[in-house]
């Protein structure tokens, strides 16, 4: 179990603009976000000796970022071949690397030209080798198609409805209207959701996240050092990474996954809450990975905010609204702020806990949850101020 409660903190955050077309390179995006995080922290660039990222689809190597920033002696400069599942994991490994003496101050980043460059939704390898030979020949190719398969089973088993999914999209968009960084700020109604194009039944267009160009970065350091820096430290209270049995041969493959109504969150919940020493009732604000509306339902159920099968009703009853029991994705999420592969959720949680979220600030937020990943494996953090 994660046994570094309160020993490490996020000391700085930074990002770029989020857009459909950055007009620049992924490396420049990464450098800009990282520099902004260092400036935010008020730390000497020379003190940074770790850079961590994850690079499923578009990215740049961590050593390129270390080189571009002019770090004199990078040590823990690594990346994971992983998707959104690693958006919280890299903060965990940043802290672990410091604990192990492999680094002192570690930058975590995610950068991509996800719309103007490499589009993840565009389809996987059509030459169907390996595990793909059992899926692509049947026209099962994109991530929306993968996740829609999970969602249908929830509808079959629990009667979850498209309207309930729609409430997720509507609430996040409402939050995005208060966020000047958000790419989608025009309010939508449930009727808009229902009228939006059916992409892959049961998913309408508005069940599916954005594609974005942009970058986010965060500086992780020890709690002691963080207290000497410019910002109020945001401590890593609890953390977990993992999933259940049969996580599959790649991020798409869930053929052997036992139950598509439950994702990795069910399997990491105990470790997450035990490591943090708090439970779902203690969370003031949650940033839950939302590549699709349905993943929020699984996250709510898996982490114990409501019983299995009740996620749709929880949402329908206003549970995730800004004024509701559990404000979720106060920035608008991947559905309405931007798709920075889940790393923008970390930045939003930090801002909420600093109390600097402006018009979208949750009053007196002290403890926040972030999750990362949608399917068979993923990570989560409990942060506190």
């Amino acid at each position, binding site marked *: 179990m994660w046994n570094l409660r309160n020993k490490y903190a996020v000391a700085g955050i930074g990002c770029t603009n989020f857009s459909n077309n950055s007009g620049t390179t992924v490396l420049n995006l990464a450098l800009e976000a990282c520099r902004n995080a260092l400036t935010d922290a008020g730390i000497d660039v020379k003190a940074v000796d770790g850079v961590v990222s994850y690079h499923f689809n578009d990215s740049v190597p961590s050593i390129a970022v270390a080189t571009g920033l002019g770090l004199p002696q990078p040590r823990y400069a690594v990346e994971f071949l992983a998707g959104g599942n690693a958006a919280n994991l890299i903060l965990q490994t940043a802290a672990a690397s410091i604990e192990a003496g492999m680094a002192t101050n570690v930058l975590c980043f995610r950068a991509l030209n996800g719309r103007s460059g490499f589009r993840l939704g565009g389809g996987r390898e059509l030459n169907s080798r390996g595990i793909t030979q059992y899926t692509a020949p049947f*026209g099962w190719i994109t991530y929306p198609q993968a996740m829609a*398969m999970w969602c249908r089973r929830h509808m079959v088993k629990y009667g979850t409805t498209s309207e309930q999914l729609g409430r997720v999209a509507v609430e996040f968009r409402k939050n995005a209207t208060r966020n000047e960084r958000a790419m989608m700020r025009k309010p939508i109604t449930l009727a808009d959701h229902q009228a939006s194009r059916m992409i892959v039944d049961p998913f309408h267009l508005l069940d599916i996240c954005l594609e974005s160009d942009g970058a986010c970065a965060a500086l992780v350091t020890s709690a002691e050092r963080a207290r000497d820096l410019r910002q109020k430290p945001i401590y890593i209270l609890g953390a977990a990474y993992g999933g259940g049995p049969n996580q599959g041969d790649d991020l798409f493959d869930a*053929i052997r996954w036992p139950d598509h109504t439950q994702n990795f969150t069910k399997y990491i919940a105990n470790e997450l809450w035990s490591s943090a020493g708090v439970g779902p009732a203690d969370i003031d604000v949650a940033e839950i990975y939302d590549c699709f509306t349905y993943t929020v339902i699984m996250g709510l159920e898996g982490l114990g905010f409501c019983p299995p099968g009740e996620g749709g009703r929880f949402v329908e009853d206003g549970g995730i609204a800004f004024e509701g029991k559990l404000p979720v994705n106060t920035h608008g999420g991947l559905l309405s702020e931007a798709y920075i592969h889940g790393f923008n959720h970390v930045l939003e949680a930090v801002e909420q806990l600093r109390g600097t979220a402006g018009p979208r600030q949750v009053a007196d937020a002290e403890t926040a949850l972030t999750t990362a990943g949608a399917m068979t494996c993923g990570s989560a953090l409990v942060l506190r101020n």
Partner: protein
Amino acid sequence: MIPTKLHYDKPVPIADFDSAPFWEGCRQHRLLLQCCTACDHPRFPPSGMCPRCRSMQSKWVAASGRGRLYSWIVVRHPIPREIYAGEVPYVVALVDLEEGVRIATNITCVPEDLTGDMPVEVVFDDVTPELTLPRFRPLR
């Protein structure tokens, strides 16, 4: 008769060491499942090791071809467009076979007829002289 398409443009499975018997079975209109020689545990997708007992010895046994519809999607937006524009809407499904494994496939019926856990049976589709895909239809 002139074929409307000169070649099959959809993804073609690249058979490998583990999967070749499965695809060859399909070509012969037999749904073969890999089973562990040591513990008889069936598995899909094919793989080199039994995840239950770690044996690397396996045999191929004929499945009944019957199962239940675990989940399904209806693809309406074609990706890539140039390949699937003429195919949508089509149904992709996960079917739980009687033998206890799950397989990805297509269901050859209109989406409106589908219900969760409905019984289905395999139907072999010879899409090219070299490739047969195991699709499923509602059990009559």
